[in-house]
């Protein structure tokens, strides 16, 4: 069923339409969640909260196009991912883990992606800014507002993220090797 009709059915209260939306969108939204959390279980938690938000607010959503619908869905996932990150940061302070560090757990063993692996080289804030700017298409103003940063900080984090990723890409090209997957 097309997205437009699925959404229309969900607004009428159809649970099967909700399930259809879930089935059609889960895998793609999981990729979004993973880019922020780098953790399977966290990404699942994020997705869970995101779908709860989606279904509770879909009544107010107006369908214009599939592209806009995907953007809306992804933004909800991004917001939930940032919420998870904030929660995780506070948790890390209580447990006396130095801020800025994070435990990077094994990403979905079914999923191996060289670009995803490169994102692991970035610090958390750099990764969030890069994901939001380069992939999600947020502006620096929006990112700064969302993360509680100055616009200048957002720009500098993006620049640093780009430099590190560029280094990684060049290294991979020059080595012409199968990468070391020992993370």
């Amino acid at each position, binding site marked *: 069923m097309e997205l437009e009709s699925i959404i229309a059915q969900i607004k009428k209260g159809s649970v099967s339409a909700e399930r259809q939306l*879930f089935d059609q969108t*889960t*895998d*793609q939204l*999981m*990729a979004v969640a993973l880019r922020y959390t780098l953790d399977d279980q966290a990404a*699942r938690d994020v*997705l*869970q909260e995101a779908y*709860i938000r989606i*279904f*509770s*607010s879909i009544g*107010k*959503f107006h369908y214009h196009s599939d592209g806009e619908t995907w953007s*809306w869905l992804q*933004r909800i996932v991004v917001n939930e991912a*940032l*919420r998870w990150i*904030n*929660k995780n*940061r*506070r948790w890390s*302070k209580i447990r006396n883990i*130095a*801020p*800025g560090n994070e435990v*990077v757990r094994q990403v*979905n063993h*079914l*999923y191996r992606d060289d*670009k995803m692996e*490169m994102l692991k*080289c970035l*610090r958390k*804030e*750099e990764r969030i800014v890069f994901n939001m700017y*380069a*992939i999600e298409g947020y502006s620096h103003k929006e990112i700064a507002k969302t*993360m*509680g*940063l*100055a616009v200048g*900080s957002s720009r*500098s*984090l993006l620049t*640093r993220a*780009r430099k*590190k*990723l560029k280094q990684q*890409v060049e290294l991979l*090209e*020059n*080595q*012409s*090797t199968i*990468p*070391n*997957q020992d*993370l």
Partner: protein
Amino acid sequence: MENKDFHDIDRMFSDHFQGTKVPVEDKEQLWENIQSNRKRRSGIYWPLAGILLLVASSAFAWMHFQESETLMADESFKTRKEIFSSETQMEQLPLEEEKLRSMDEAMNNQEKKITSQTVKRIEENVLTNERPSGDISVKSITGEEQLMPVLSKEKDSAETLETKGNDIGHISKLGAIPLAQIAKNEMEGIHLELLGAGPDWDKCWVRPRGQWFLDAYAQFGIPLEDIQFTGEASGYAKDWEQQFDPAYSYHGGLMIGRQFHWNGYLAAGLEYQQFQTEHLNELRIIETIQIYDPRAYFTVDENGERQYIGDTVTVTNIRDEIERSANNYKMLHLPIHLGYRSKGKYWRYGIDFSALINLSFNYEGVFLRADGAVVEVDESNQSDYFVDGMGTSFSAALHLGRMVGDRTELYLQPRFRFNSQNYHNGDTGLSIKRNFAGLRVGLRYYLE
């Protein structure tokens, strides 16, 4: 160039991740969790809303009559409130207008720095569930002014804190301790990030490192000789020069080496060299041939009668020939190479230096002695005329390579080899030193 490179990076990652799908394990379980959470939350929303409304009203009434403490929200707090508002409605606790007004006022007027003392105080109070009072503002590392909420004196239970801690998107009715702590964390986080160095290579997936390689090559060289004679016989060196013509040198080798991440490399292996000279021997050949002619030979005598002489005739041919014989020098070396090679995607340039340690030396051919005799030399009498080993020679080369596969490089190296060793036994009085100019063609295969 940088802007273009950065846009390329953005596009590379954006194109890659747009539409990327990651299979979700156990989708059924996820769906069930979503449904059960939705039911649970809808079931408790109204009662919870009622309780919170009651609590909010009580707190407002209490706070309205408190003069010493003011609850202010900082910019970041407001911003955090907006974080969790998507275009859809997020659940928020309503804020009293007066509180909002006081927040705005505080934001516009207050400019006090938060000190570590204050933060420590906050930390302690978080742990003891008591909160300090007083207006505090934060000047972040980036220079951005942020207002910290002033915390009320009200005690709170750990349970409530826990609850509020999970509710970080909302202004708590009873204060904002967790937010102060979070803001401090954020500040520290930002501070650390701005001081951050290069990529955290321990976490990084692709790191600069060396590569092992195998190298196979063939080389063709032209000897450049320097012949001297230290003995008494005059013209010996000249005879030697005339009679011995250097030909060509052929090399073939196999090496194993390591290319380091800084593009230098070290390699060693085995190299076989065969060097030929020609010995030119001038010969005068006298051939006497008897030819049998069936017609026979007659003469006619004075009486007109044929007189039989014979049926053979002897013919003598004299000719000069140059007899060429090849003399082979066969050597086995241990090459040790040290070089530098740029690692371009397709083309590679560099320089190479090597030492060749001679392991064995073998000669088959002739030897011209000072007395003019030409003698056959082989293993049995080699040591009478040649040194046992050739010692060590050195070479230098330029390198030009082209990647012909993911791991294979084809290269050319014009080389020059310096050899100060004399090939000949000191008793012979003959000193020949040979340098070589040559061209190497090789294949390098990177193992990792």
